[in-house]
């Protein structure tokens, strides 16, 4: 430790390049975005000072709140879908049945590594009203009235997208949990078995507490990922029809680059930062109280 302290400046020098890059590509754009959000600007003409008017408009903008609500659906589905499913799969694959079988691991992890564009296009085909797999299957079973215009129905579309997100990222958390499970000492498990804790009981009372830290870290990842959602929606529905699947990021994009409101778009992105930060804080706080 003493040696470490004496070498403080060496450590600082080692951190400096990364810090510089981070500042240049992350901190600086955020700050400049906050600066732009105080103007009315179309990208060409001179900027007009707008003060906090953009934020006032934002608070009265129904579409913005709808997009944030959609973001929250994403967060809920991700945290309550991906994490439990990932954990379930990890425990299954860690069990005696599949332990030596790499193939399932690969299959479940596949959606994570496939490019989002490909995922979006594949699921677009699944959901196609006329020829899609989902509707074709329903019609084959004589459930014609269940066949839906999945992505065009404003009430359904966002949930339909949530399913895709869960499908896409469950594998990621499965792999993280698998790694954690493999660090659970076998003595503990054997002892638990001797004491009569088997199956679900053993999982819930012994395994989950041991990998709790990993689970918490995954939840934070999950929340920030869900708030950042953009590419999948951009390709599958482009926020439509009529904003029904808009999330914060797509709305910001549309306002900035399609409507050419650079100032307003910057205000939206600043608002997203604030809201995301708040959500992460709340989740941290909840986990801390859970740990106790």
């Amino acid at each position: 430790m003493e040696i470490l302290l004496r070498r403080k400046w060496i450590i600082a020098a080692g951190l400096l390049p990364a810090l510089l890059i981070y500042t240049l590509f992350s901190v600086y754009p955020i700050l400049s975005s906050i600066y732009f959000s105080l103007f009315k600007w179309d990208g060409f003409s001179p900027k007009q000072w707008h003060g906090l008017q953009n934020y006032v408009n934002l608070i009265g903008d129904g579409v913005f709140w709808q997009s944030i609500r959609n973001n929250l659906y994403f967060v809920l589905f991700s945290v309550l879908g991906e994490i439990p499913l990932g954990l379930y799969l990890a425990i299954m694959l860690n069990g005696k049945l599949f332990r030596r079988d790499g193939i399932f691991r690969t299959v479940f992890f596949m959606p994570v590594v496939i490019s989002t564009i490909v995922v979006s296009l594949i699921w677009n085909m699944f959901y196609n009203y006329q020829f899609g797999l989902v509707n074709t299957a329903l019609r084959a079973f004589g459930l014609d009235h269940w066949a839906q215009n999945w992505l065009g129905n404003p009430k359904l579309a966002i949930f339909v997208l949530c399913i895709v997100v869960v499908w896409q990222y469950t594998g990621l958390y499965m792999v993280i949990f698998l790694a954690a499970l493999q660090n659970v000492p076998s003595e503990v498990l054997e002892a638990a078995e001797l004491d009569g804790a088997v199956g679900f009981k053993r999982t819930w009372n012994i395994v989950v507490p041991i990998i709790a830290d990993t689970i918490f870290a995954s939840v934070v990842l999950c929340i920030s990922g869900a708030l950042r959602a953009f590419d999948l929606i951009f390709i599958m529905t482009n926020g439509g029809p009529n904003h029904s699947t808009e999330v914060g990021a797509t709305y910001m994009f549309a306002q900035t680059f399609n409507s050419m409101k650079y100032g307003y778009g910057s205000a939206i992105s600043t608002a997203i930062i604030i809201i995301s930060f708040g959500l992460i804080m709340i989740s941290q706080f909840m986990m801390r109280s859970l740990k106790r």
Partner: protein
Amino acid sequence: MKIKWTKKIGTSMLVAAMIAVLSACGQSNNADTASGQSGEAKKEPVVLSFMTTWSENDPFTGVYYKNAMAFQEANPDIKLDIETIPYNDYPVKLSTTAAAGKLTDLILMIGGGSTFEQIARSGALMPIDDMMGNWKEDFLPSSKIKEFNVDGKQYGIPGEVSYATVIFYNKKIMKDAGYTEFPKTYEAFKAMVKDLKAKNITPIAYGNKTGSVLLSSLLSPLNERISGPDLYAKIKSGEQKFTGPDFINALKDIKELSDMGAFNVDLNSIDNVQATNLFLSGNTAMYVDGSWGVKQISMDKAADFEVGFAVFPQIEEGKGSMSTMPGATNQGVVLNAKLDETKKAAAEKFLQFMYSEQSYQNIIRSGNMVPANVEAPADIDPLFKEMTGALADVKEVTPVFDIVMPATVVAATKNGLQGLTTPGGSAPEAVAEELQKELGQ
């Protein structure tokens, strides 16, 4: 915006009455620039960076790409450094690079309109008035290149003319349903839609995922048929309002069509390529898109699939007429204001080549109408020929909505139209109010 928008589109290129008189520079001496290489050191070629949507295998822009390649072939001393951006992303890319002051030497302008005018007025583009001597009035009438003229300065020359609305219909389905003639009035058209629906046929395929198709192919013609050619100019000047009866009636008509089931259920979740396929696979009686839609239909249709073409019908109590059609001129290359003399000279050569008689004939061959008076080549696509025949009575072109209105209004309208055509979606009045609000900002 007190420009008179109406333009005369002569169909003379099809009548082939004109034999274009080309000035000597119209076809500049492309062949022998490669001479004089022996002895002297080889000169570095002039490199022109060029941002465009053109790509070789795209049915819509392939011809321009090939023309550009032919230009390079003929001019080894000029090199095009082409950056291709997908069509749907192009407007965003264009406005952001313009805003950042990072425009390439040559820039494609897909069409005229508010974004282009904004960029031109910001001083980022070079007027080409001093080059316009290369094109004679009787070859390229100035009335047809107006969209690329801002505040009296010409910035580019369009490569093609397109109409925003052509109704493509499946002749067999129509005949089986008992229609040999396409209705000439909107009332009769609606009756036909109802009848088709009753016979369990989806009347119209639309691919409105991006929002632009309903805007240009349904709202624009309805506005024209109801209010005549100058509604948009009046709305922009404040003389009329989006919330006025004229505009709202067009929105109501769209909602009415949607409510009677005139469109494919998933019109807002598929794009126009998918919608074309829906039509070509015999799932719908009609497909509505711009005149550019003919290319994909021509490429993908089965040999025995018979396509009919119709002009948007007349609204009896309206002020518009079937001889008028919303449309646009597209595919003009504009120059960066920062070009030096060498690059400017090279760019001028490029424009001369790209908008020469030969190039225009290639553009016609690929299934486009053109603004220049050139003879139609003998080997054009018969389907395209048929379409131009069906459109022969159209004499006037009025500007489409998205060319005239500011970007914010266009974006809001796209969403509004998606709302109108979604079950349980928006009401026409609410959409109109939203647009008026956007315009006022």
